[in-house]
């Protein structure tokens, strides 16, 4: 039998987290090297459309568990579903997004299957000799990179950061089989009940922003972020922050970029008053273009900036905002 490279497709009310498709794209590459197949697991309620979408993103087969118990994500039934599938089909590799859902789920699955799990991976490749999966992740705050293998247990499992791999192109004409499986759990057997859900006013979508205007301790005060927000809004982007700015209480944790924050991949990343510590860099160094403004010419951010400006951010920001407003004005006229 061909080795199976599996991706858990994470969806909320039928809306799929893009990291699942990014992983499906990568799974296709890994499968090729293993002479195997890339397959998707879709769990949820009334999610057949998600299964079809998975095929258009490259799944060679989809396993679908469609059950009212899976209406919204809960650890117990979702873990049970995936564990049963793994026991039945014995995949070689199982990949999940390093999202709150993926990380909640992966630890439970790996423990039940008594296999290894590598968290928060930023690189995947197949060892040409042993055919093992090499999973690379930053360790010790990003100071070093560690490659992890799981040679004697299957599946080889990891959670992978969003934006690590590119989104594959969608091909709606692709055809593949959908295999329906039973969950075999009744609502009465599930111990955790959701009684309410308080949605966030604004979901910060940093990982997928095209422009990020990020500020660090160099802003000096919370109000600095209002300038950054204005600029980000003008550019149709998002605000980002270093941990120092978050720790100072100037901005919420969800805006944090880096090792313990988000990994981003915008077209342009503006780093304003950010020194560029390694833990920050691991989260943003894959931006297409990095602009840094910092008063200290020795700041490590300049080692990775495509355009480095040594100077005071407060000198540059207001005229920059003015200039962009003018540009926008011309654009409309």
């Amino acid at each position, binding site marked *: 039998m061909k080795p199976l490279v599996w991706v858990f497709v994470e969806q909320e009310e039928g809306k799929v987290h893009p990291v699942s498709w990014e992983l499906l794209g990568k799974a296709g590459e890994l499968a090729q090297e293993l002479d195997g197949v890339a397959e998707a697991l879709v769990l949820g309620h009334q999610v057949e459309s998600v299964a079809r979408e998975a095929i258009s993103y490259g799944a060679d087969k989809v396993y679908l568990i469609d059950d009212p118990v899976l209406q919204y994500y809960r*650890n*117990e039934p979702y873990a049970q579903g995936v564990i049963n599938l793994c026991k039945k089909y014995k995949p070689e590799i199982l990949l999940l997004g390093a999202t*709150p*859902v993926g*990380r*909640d789920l992966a*630890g*439970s699955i*790996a*423990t039940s299957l*008594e296999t*290894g*799990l590598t*968290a928060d991976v930023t690189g995947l490749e197949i060892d040409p000799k042993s055919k093992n999966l090499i999973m690379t992740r930053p*360790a*010790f*705050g990003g*100071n*070093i*990179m*560690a*490659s*992890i*293998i*799981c*040679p004697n*247990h299957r599946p080889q499992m990891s959670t992978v950061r969003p934006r690590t791999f590119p989104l594959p192109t969608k091909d709606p004409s692709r055809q593949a089989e959908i295999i329906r499986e039973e969950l075999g759990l009744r609502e009465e057997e599930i*111990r*955790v*009940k959701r*009684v*309410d*859900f*308080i949605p*966030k006013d604004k979901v910060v979508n940093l990982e997928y922003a*095209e*422009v990020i205007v990020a500020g660090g301790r160099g802003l000096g005060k919370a109000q600095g972020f209002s300038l950054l927000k204005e600029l980000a809004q003008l*550019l149709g982007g998002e605000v980002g922050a270093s941990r120092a700015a978050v720790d100072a209480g100037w901005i919420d944790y969800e805006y944090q970029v880096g*090792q*313990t924050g988000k990994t981003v991949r915008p*077209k*342009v990343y*503006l780093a304003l008053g950010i020194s560029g510590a390694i833990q920050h860099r691991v989260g943003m*160094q894959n931006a*297409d273009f990095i602009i840094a403004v910092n008063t200290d010419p020795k700041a490590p951010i300049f*080692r*990775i900036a*495509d*355009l*480095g*400006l*040594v*100077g*005071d951010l407060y*000198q*540059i920001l207001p005229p*920059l905002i003015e*200039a962009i407003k003018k*540009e926008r004005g011309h*654009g409309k006229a």
Partner: protein
Amino acid sequence: MNILVSIKQVPDTTNIRINPETGTLVREGVPSIVNPYDVHALALASLLKRLYGAHITVITMGPPQAEEALKEAVEFGADRVILLSDRKFAGADTLATSYTLAEAIKYLAQEAPFDLFLFGKQAIDGDTAQVGPGVARRLGVPLITYAVKLEIIDQEKKEVIVHRKTASGVEVLKVTLPVLITCDKEIADPPFSPLPELIKAAQTKPEIFNAQRPIPYKREKLGLKGSPTRVHRVYTPQLKSAGDILFVSEIGVSEAVEKIIAVLKDRGIL
């Protein structure tokens, strides 16, 4: 209520330095702390004890020096502290760690079953967030990760409400104890230690469990042997090469602004 808290002693990673020549960690002089999320787990246990009365057991797996972390736990009102320490435990990945902790918890639960298991959402040295979910599986208790609030709604029926942070909002979950919760910072703030507990903490000698006593562990499931994952290679990340560095004092503000605008246009943003 019978509460178990699992804490880990970690190097204060803010102070970590890498030897640029060897690419290895400089451990000398790096202070150890209780993993920050575990401090909030301890704070929650302490709060519940003050509100409802509780017996708090705290365990940690680590080298002998992890005893210090347990002393800190006593300051939070821990009634019993246990150190799982043995060379055979060393080198454990999350699978072996969850086995070692879960077996100890099962052993301790023989005396009196636990109602609540509190873990940190993740340990800052590895950031894996896998040990809590692993232990929940091994104990067969329901798991709630990323918890930011816990309320006891019915003490008799042992019903609790837990708020859990997700990517799109906060889930309000109801569950009957026992449950294993991994705690985020918002769950509770550390209290000031009253003096008697500080004195008690200083005098505390934790109970030590090793690989044979009081639990005859399965050797092959411990430490490096019991860990399916292996470190294949360790290296220092490559820096991508830098572009132009210009001094605003030399080129002037308007030129600097123009440079930025040019990039934004070139990249299709403006």
